[in-house]
Structures are given as structure tokens and as C-alpha cells.
């Protein structure tokens, strides 16, 4: 485009292309050459530039802030059915706690949709920083399963404390997920981009089964803020088990 006769001006369309850096260097150079010698085209270019900037500025001043983008990994939760292993088939009471960014309405709606639960169940924040979702407590046959999407080759598993009883078991599988079985006390579960945080108490008794896909090379487990234990993929695949019962003094 743009083969100008000596007395032909640059079209509006080509001025916008020039402004936006469209076209090859030759086109840009031809427009530039014309503009250097043409006052009307230069003025029109300035007008289009001023209007573009003015619109950008107005839009920036009047657009509502976007919700926090930085969550999330949770994709689906569900109850295990009859096929669950025996250790999953006792009373379950679990809180799933998702991060503060989920307070943002669209993110919450999205998560609610993906979790397959009503948005009202996710709605009311109970604390300024976190909000909790009590899932159906005490379904006798069920554990609570939360799927997540690891965002790296390492998954962090941060457990608040040792417990009265229970363990973590690892397994390899297609779908990354945690299945929680609480027999006593309470625990909550926070899904973060880097992994999972389990908010248990020393009085609780709960088992956690953690399923990790092949892409995850290792899990870094911390209990009670102690030194992390690194579990490589091979030991995950071999069904590594970590006892969460309080260590003997």
C-alpha cells in the first residue's frame, strides 16, 4: 500500500498504521518521508495521536480494577464413592479454605463452577484474609477430594502441625489431587499456586492421600514449620507414607 503521488496525502488509515507501527519498515519510512514535508498530514497525525492518548487516559481512569489474578489451582472437588479404600470410609469433616484472592467475585464464580458447588456455598468471607467453605461434614462413606494444578515441577505440602494420629500417603496418578479423611478434630486445606497448605491441629486425626502426576519431580513436605523433607517422584510412585502422629519426646 501507500504508493503516493507527489501531491497525494497519506490516508487516515495509513496514518493510524503509522501510529501503531503496522506495516513493514519500507511503509513506515514512506509515511515518515511524506510527513516530514507535509503540514496537513502532520497535523492530522497529531490529532489522531492526541485522540488515541486521550481515549487511553480516560479508559484507564474509568475502568474498575480487575480482581486479583494470582490464584489458583483448585479445579474440582468431589466425594469419593464406594470404590474408596477402607481408610477413606469413615466420618469426614473438612474445611476447604481458598486464598484471599478468591474473594473477588469473578474468581469465586469461576471456582464455584469448577468445584461443582453452588457459589453461595463459597460466598461469605468469615475473616478479612481468608474465607472458609464447610463441605458436607460426616458423610460416612466419603473422603473430601480436592484437585489442583501444580504450577511447577515441585509441589509444596505445608502442614501446620503433627497430629494425634494419621498419615500422608503419596501415589502417582493422572490427576493431581488431595483426598482428606478427618476422623477427629478439624483440618482445613488451602490450595495455593505452589502447592497445598493443610491447616490441622495437634489434636486432629486425619489421613491425607496426595496424588501427583508424572510431571512433578519432587514434593517438599514441611510439618509444623520444621525442616522440609524432600520426596522425589520415585518414592511418590512407590507409595511413600509419612506418619503424622506426634513424634515421641
Amino acid at each position, binding site marked *: 500500500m501507500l504508493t503516493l503521488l507527489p501531491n497525494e496525502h497519506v490516508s*487516515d488509515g495509513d496514518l493510524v498504521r503509522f501510529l501503531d507501527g503496522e506495516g513493514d519498515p519500507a511503509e513506515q519510512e514512506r509515511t515518515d518521508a511524506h510527513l516530514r514535508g507535509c503540514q496537513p498530514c502532520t497535523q492530522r497525525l497529531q490529532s489522531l495521536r492526541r485522540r488515541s492518548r*486521550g*481515549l487511553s487516559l*480516560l479508559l484507564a481512569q*474509568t475502568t474498575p480494577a*480487575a480482581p486479583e*489474578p494470582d490464584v489458583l489451582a483448585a479445579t474440582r472437588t468431589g466425594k469419593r464413592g464406594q470404590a474408596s479404600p477402607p481408610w477413606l470410609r469413615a466420618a469426614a469433616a473438612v474445611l476447604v479454605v481458598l486464598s484471599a484472592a478468591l474473594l473477588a467475585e*469473578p474468581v469465586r464464580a469461576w471456582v464455584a463452577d469448577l468445584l461443582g458447588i453452588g457459589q453461595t456455598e463459597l460466598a461469605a468471607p468469615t475473616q478479612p484474609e481468608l474465607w472458609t467453605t464447610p463441605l458436607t461434614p460426616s458423610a460416612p462413606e466419603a473422603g473430601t477430594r480436592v484437585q489442583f494444578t501444580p*504450577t511447577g515441577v515441585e509441589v509444596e505440602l505445608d502442614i501446620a502441625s503433627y497430629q494425634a494420629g494419621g498419615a500422608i500417603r503419596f501415589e502417582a496418578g493422572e490427576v493431581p489431587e488431595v483426598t482428606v479423611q478427618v476422623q477427629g478434630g478439624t483440618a482445613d486445606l488451602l490450595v495455593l499456586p505452589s502447592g497445598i497448605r493443610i491447616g490441622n491441629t495437634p489434636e486432629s486425626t486425619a489421613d491425607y492421600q496426595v496424588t501427583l502426576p508424572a510431571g512433578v519431580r519432587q514434593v517438599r513436605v514441611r510439618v509444623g514449620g520444621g525442616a522440609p523433607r524432600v520426596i522425589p517422584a520415585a518414592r511418590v510412585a512407590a507409595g511413600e507414607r509419612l506418619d503424622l502422629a506426634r513424634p515421641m519426646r
Partner: protein
Amino acid sequence: MDVAALFAEHHTALFRYLARWTGDPDVAADAAQEAFVKLLERPPKPGETRAWLFRVGTNAARESERTRSRRSRLLEEAPDRAPMGDAPLAPDARLAAGERRRVVQQALAGLPERDRTMLLMREEGFSHREIAEAVGTTTKSVGTMIARALDKLAAELRLDEEDI
């Protein structure tokens, strides 16, 4: 597909674009959500994700009944083709933020959908080729149409004033 990473990368811009496009943050949030859910269901080819999300989000917003009702309400509120520079409507610094937002939304709502889409996609840094594909025109004609749309908005939003 790393959904969390894609969400982190694209959600802010998609929401911003849709909020401007619809004039309604709630509709924008719903449409953005729908786009991401569809992304999980039917992922586009790598490299096309961004344009794909904006296209699907725009379609979702268009289909929203709420968008339509809001748009018609905004148009009803519009002045009888305000004379140029009509002081109470100009989005200058004296106007409260809410009023300024309303004026900008009203001006955008008054544009044909295609013009609005083009201006707002340009605002997000899409190339003329991507814009052309989104609205169904040729790459070459995008510049002309953008110039015309800017001219339409100029008087209504006082875009020619130095100190907006």
C-alpha cells in the same frame, strides 16, 4: 495446560477489556469466567490463546441479556445528541469519578459494536491483523475504521483537549 498460569497471564486484561466493552463489571466478570471455562473444555492452539480468550469473552458478553438491557438503558440516558462540548457531560477533572465513568461508558455504548471492539482491542495492544480477524474485516481497513471511530468519540469525550 497450565490453567493457573494462563489465568494469571490473561485474566486482568480480559476483564478490563470486557468491563469497558460491556460497561458492567458483573457482566464482564461472568463473560471472562465463561471464556476460561471454555478454555479448559476446548483449548485453542498454543500461540492463539490470547486472541481466542478475547473472542470467546466478547461473544459471551454479547449474548448476555444483562449487557443488552444495560446498553439500552445507557442509550436512553444519553442526551439528545449533546452539542459539542456540552459542559455538564464532558469528562473533565471537575466531574466526579462515577460521573466520568458513566460518560465514557455512554460514549462507548453509543458506538457500533464493531468500532467499540476495534478500539478496545487496540487499547490492549492487539495487532491490526488480530483486530481484523476478530471483527471480520481486512487488516488494511482497520486503520481507517479506527480513525473514524476516534473522530466519533473526540467531541463527545473532549479527546482534543490537552488536559483530560
